[in-house]
């Protein structure tokens, strides 16, 4: 009979993923268009040596690798939480329109003058605007999928498709409404790229990711109980409504912060929880492994986006979609 994951396998997987993540970030620091020796990179990391090398390592390579790790981790954890909440292994912030809603909120915030992308203050402000957009999307998906006060798991994806379409329409409207100067910047941003990583953006995103994780991790046992169904979880003393509200807020915040910083990067929230689930005996392990796995996946995908057609770069969102869309189809067909 199939053995299910236990605690030991989860710890082993966490150790492997953590090591892989360090190795990937390290590799990202070592390699780039400008050839730097490991020693130069090491010195530059601590601010000594050639000024150009310091700028390359500390302002370009390091922020980009860290931003990739944070965005990948945030999207994967958001997906894992949404899957637990909605009882649907196909839930993903991108597929449910949460990312689209966040993009609308971010764009609207930028048009209303919360700041140009890349400016320091806007790194903190724009995710909040995106968060409001993501929340509206979550509420709409919920309203579309609820039947008699309950979320119908089958309708959920359909509802997500509709909300996604609505978000795309609003984005197009906002883009045609905005002037050409904004339009071009935002088109590049929407495609999803880590190229604009700045130390300020990394700090802002780290703050939101920590906040999201602090909200979600204590709910891990409640998520476990929710796997028995909401009613049964309630009879086990779980405050189902409170748990759901906090978790929706946190999952939306994580997705929105990622989207506001790097644009729409799809399928990470779908792929990663699915890949690590077979290693995680419960949601505590699942959330931790999802974060590490998402971080490792996006740092790798970004390396691909830089090197596939070097020196030209492609959108990292295109890479994750190329990996994710077929996986999604396989998952869809594998469902009982």
């Amino acid at each position, binding site marked *: 009979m199939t053995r299910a994951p236990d605690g030991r396998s989860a710890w082993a997987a966490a150790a492997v993923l953590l090591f892989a993540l360090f190795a990937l970030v390290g590799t990202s620091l070592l390699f780039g268009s400008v050839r730097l020796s490991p020693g130069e990179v090491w010195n530059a990391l601590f601010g000594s040596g050639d000024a150009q090398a310091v700028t390359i390592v500390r302002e370009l390579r390091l922020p980009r690798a860290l931003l990739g790790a944070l965005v990948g981790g945030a999207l994967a954890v958001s997906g894992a939480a949404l899957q637990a909440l909605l009882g649907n292994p196909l839930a993903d912030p991108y597929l449910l329109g949460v990312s689209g809603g966040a993009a609308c909120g971010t764009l609207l915030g930028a048009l209303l003058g919360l700041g140009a992308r890349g400016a320091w203050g806007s790194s903190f402000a724009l995710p909040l605007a995106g968060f409001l957009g993501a929340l509206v999307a979550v509420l709409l998906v919920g309203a579309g999928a609820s039947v008699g006060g309950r979320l119908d798991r089958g309708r959920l994806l359909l509802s997500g498709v509709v909300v996604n379409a609505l978000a795309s329409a609003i984005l197009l409207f906002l883009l045609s409404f905005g002037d050409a100067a904004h339009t071009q910047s935002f088109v590049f941003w929407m495609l999803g790229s880590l190229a604009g990583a700045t130390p300020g953006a990394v700090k802002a995103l780290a703050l939101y990711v920590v906040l999201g994780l602090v909200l979600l991790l204590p709910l891990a046992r409640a998520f476990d109980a929710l796997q028995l169904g909401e009613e049964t979880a309630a009879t086990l*003393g779980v405050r189902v409504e409170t748990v759901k509200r906090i978790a929706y807020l946190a999952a939306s915040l994580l997705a929105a912060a990622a989207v506001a910083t790097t644009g729409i990067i799809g399928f990470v929230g779908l792929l990663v929880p699915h890949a690590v689930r077979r290693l995680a005996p419960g949601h505590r392990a699942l959330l931790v492994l999802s974060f590490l796995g998402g971080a490792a996946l996006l740092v790798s995908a970004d390396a691909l986006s830089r090197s596939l057609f070097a020196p030209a770069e492609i959108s990292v969102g295109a890479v994750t979609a190329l990996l994710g869309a077929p996986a999604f189809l396989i998952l869809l067909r594998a469902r009982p």
Partner: protein
Amino acid sequence: MTPRLEAHGLSAGYGGKAVLEGVSLGLAPGRVSVLLGENGSGKSTLLKALAGVLKPQAGDVRLAGRSLGSVPRREAARAIGYLPQGFEPLFPMRARDLVLLGRTPHLSAFGVPGAGDRAAAEAALLEMDATALADADIRAMSGGERQRVLLARVLAGAPDVLLLDEPTANLDPRHRFLVLDAMRRRAAAGGSVLFSTHEIDVASEGADDAVLLAGGRVLAEGPVGTTLTGRLLSELFAVSACVSPGAGGKPLVSFGPPPAR
């Protein structure tokens, strides 16, 4: 003895529609009660309302004399164990971890299960003859195996009141007796048990009392000797029912086709 869990004039249902109307009954300590009725008569709805999952539209559910709505959530969760019907697991989970979820109301807010919780889970698995399944994925199990693991989850919580919706569904005869024995042991230790079933032999074998539910109302309630009668069962199920005294004073029921009009 005063009942531990009781319903007073309970109406409950879904949306605006009432499935149960004016149901009153009590579950006394030390007794195993069976809930009988046709499909759609409101058995599952009654169990949900008693478990606090479904809010009453009218009337009241009381736990040890207090209205269930005013009992703190964790206290109610420790007192009442509820097994719903039908569970389709979506994600992989070890049987042992699922059973451990039954200890949730005994843990501190964000607590980690301790040695005592693990011991309770292992004991419940053993009681349900599911120790060999402990490391297996619940999604890979047969219906009967999964049912035993789900029952072990309820037993692991050591509740005073057990509300079980078709606990013997999918079980082979040996495991059916295992479940009846477990219910009997809980009652003997002072617990109260209410379970629903469509298997009349399980009802007569396992229960001290019976609640007969027809169209959302209680048709009859009381010891099986007075409730599992040919007249009441014929009326309840609209078939011809023949009851004879069996071994140990338990009624022996056999059904025949509905009497010709």
